[in-house]
């Protein structure tokens, strides 16, 4: 009995120590590995096993298979493994894997807003000017190229873009006698009028800043600007405040979704409820692919129950968020960048993979699948229906978050979620803006904070 207790006590104190070591410190950084590919005497690239990380499920299976088959056919003896990473953990995974030559993926997809941080930190291999020209050069989506460049050197290329537009219940809007709005103020009034206790006029979670910043951009506001060498958060700029206040009015007037919600599956809100009655929302804002989760129930070829993709356009329809003085509001440009890890052991094979991704065939496949192609020459393939047209129209007017080195830190620490939640809860926008400017500015410049 006594011995058992001694063992237990020792074990317990050991466990105490072990468990108290919660966060792991960073690994020791290894010296950049020799990244020159060993080429065999014939000049052929030595075969290797390449790993590509894609983020989330946006890249359809058909495209993944194409990449694997084409790559393995063109690079005899080499293999390509595609690993899907969750968007939520992507920054974490990139932070820990990219510096490690042993475990780094060779080619990675990352969010366009995350690209500046990793590009500035030196995580990626330079894309030589010759390769850049070969992959599409100036035809590549330039705002994304800038997000992946430092002082004119390109490190991360655009992968695809998407943009957000409004999906609405045409039947409910027309029953209420409300026309599709032509200005942002009209939009706010319309969705406020449509709201009932059981139905949001416009379903919007308080923490959903990626939708919310469209109001800032539309009012000519900026989230942050570069003054000299330093990035400065500009929430207190009068245009930014005007945008935030307009958004606050829309949230308070039109949405029944709690202020703490974010990344809600809004598309569900538009569909008829199973038990009948009004849907949960008359209007939502979502990326284009949300279409396939909206509509009446129907059966697909396999006999599964699916949504019909908004086939009935007297019931479900779309419009672009209007600007302050009409036209189209600049919305947040969603999308991804693609880059080669600086620590990759197979840089030449990685470049071969990039050649496949930026080939005409693959760019066509992206466009056909509703993903905005990296090479803007292929935009026309998308413009075959109203969904494609509106995607290209909103994308042309879309805007990126600031390309500050510390932007990923701001996202990683959920700072904007917090700010928008507090605004949604009815906080004083001017005070909150001043408070968060102070928090965000040091983070933007990559200083600990």
């Amino acid at each position, binding site marked *: 009995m006594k011995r058992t207790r001694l063992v237990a*006590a020792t074990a*317990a104190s050991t466990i105490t120590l072990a468990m108290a070591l919660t966060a792991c410190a960073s690994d020791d*950084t290894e010296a950049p590995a020799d990244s020159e590919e060993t080429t065999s005497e014939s000049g052929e690239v030595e075969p290797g096993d390449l790993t590509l990380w894609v983020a989330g499920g946006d890249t359809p299976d058909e495209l993944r298979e194409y990449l694997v088959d084409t790559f393995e056919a063109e690079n005899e003896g080499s293999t390509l493994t595609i690993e899907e990473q969750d968007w939520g953990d992507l920054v974490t995974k990139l*932070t820990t894997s990219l510096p490690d030559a042993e475990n780094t993926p060779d080619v990675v997809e990352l969010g366009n807003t995350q690209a500046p941080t990793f590009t500035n930190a030196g995580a990626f291999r330079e894309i030589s000017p010759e390769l850049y020209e070969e992959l599409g050069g100036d035809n590549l989506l330039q705002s994304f190229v800038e997000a992946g460049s430092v002082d004119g050197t390109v490190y991360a290329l655009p992968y695809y873009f998407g943009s957000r537009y409004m999906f609405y219940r045409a039947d409910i809007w027309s029953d209420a006698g409300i026309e599709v709005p032509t200005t942002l103020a009209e939009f706010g009034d319309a969705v406020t009028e449509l709201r009932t206790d059981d139905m949001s006029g416009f379903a919007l979670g308080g923490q959903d800043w990626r939708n919310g910043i469209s109001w800032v951009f539309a009012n000519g506001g900026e989230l942050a600007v570069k003054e000299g060498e330093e990035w400065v958060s500009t929430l207190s700029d009068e245009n930014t405040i005007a945008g935030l206040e307009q958004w606050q009015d829309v949230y308070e007037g039109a949405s029944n979704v709690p202020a703490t919600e974010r990344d809600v599956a809004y598309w569900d809100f538009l569909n008829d409820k199973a038990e009948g009655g009004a849907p949960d929302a008359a209007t939502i804002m979502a990326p284009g692919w949300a279409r396939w989760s909206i509509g009446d129930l129907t059966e697909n070829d396999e006999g599964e129950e699916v949504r019909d993709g908004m086939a009935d356009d007297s019931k479900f329809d779309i419009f672009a968020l209007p600007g302050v003085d009409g036209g189209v509001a600049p919305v947040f440009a969603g999308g991804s960048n693609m880059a080669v890890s600086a620590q990759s052991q197979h840089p030449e094979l990685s470049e071969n993979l990039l050649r496949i991704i930026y080939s005409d065939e693959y760019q066509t496949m992206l466009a056909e699948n509703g993903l905005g192609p990296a090479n803007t020459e292929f935009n026309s393939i998308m413009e075959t229906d109203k969904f494609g047209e509106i995607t290209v129209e909103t994308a042309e007017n879309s805007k990126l978050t600031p390309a500050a080195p510390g932007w990923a830190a701001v996202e990683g620490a959920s700072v904007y979620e917090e700010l928008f939640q507090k605004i949604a809860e009815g906080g004083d926008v001017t005070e909150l803006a001043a408070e968060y400017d102070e928090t965000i500015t040091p983070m933007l410049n990559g200083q600990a904070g």
Partner: protein
Amino acid sequence: MTQAIGTTAGSDGIAIRRRRRPATPYVLLIPAVAALLIGLGYPVYWQIVTSLQEFGLMQQFGAPPTFVGLDNYARIFTDAEVWSVVAKSIAFCLVNALLTVGIGLGLAVLMRAVSGWVRITMQITLLLAWATPLVAAVTVFRWLFDYRTGVVNWIFVQSGFESFDGYNWLGNVWTFFMVASFIVIWMSVPFVALSIYAGLTQVSEEVLEAARIDGAGSRQILWRIIMPLVRPVIAIVLLLQIIWDLRVFAQIRLLQDAGAPIAETNLLGNYIYELGVGSQDFAGAAAVSLFVLVLTMVLSGPYVRYLMKEDAA
């Protein structure tokens, strides 16, 4: 082993034997000490080094870190948010650990009192709760407390509390921690209940019979005989609970993902994660981690000392 030597050191003959200390025990200690040094010593060493440097994403990708002394500690511990997180974590940890052990103890005593098949049903039920994967358990609770479709709100509304229609449990700090506590307690009660029950089965029938012959009632037997005998087990599980509940991370994180005020609901583990991995301030995160190490030792120190004393007695 040391004890045997210590207590018999009185006579001369044995004193001589003491002088030639056998090497074997020390040799046998080497693997354990080596494992501790490699598994714990090295990370702690790195943690300390990192906490004294400026270490962000640039350093992670190879830039040489600069030594900044205690700057990180000064920066972290003058931040009111850190102290609020510390206070919340300690309160959450103590409340949950005590409730868990209290409920577990109650269930263990109950299991001892009930008849065979009831006990087996209870044990299986407890084991199933214990075996539920963490993410699955949190998901179930998220669904139960969902503001739109959750069954909890539905039950309240059905029993006449209309104000709970659409009530957002995770949107308020207090109700958020209440839901988090439900999950933590639900998941750790089985371990406590079964451990204490195992301890209870070791109480010998003769002792109880002797007590009964001496005229002790069942309440007296419980408090005067059984409880003192299983006290060491209770002490150990309470210690483990305190440590576990102080480092709670995933439950909070998964609940936050369901939509909650993030900064206000962070506990130490989440705060460190957000600081280090989220905003790439590895040095600051290392400094807070070391603080948590010290905090854990302070919180669990009295128990470890008590257990040591029990053993020496």
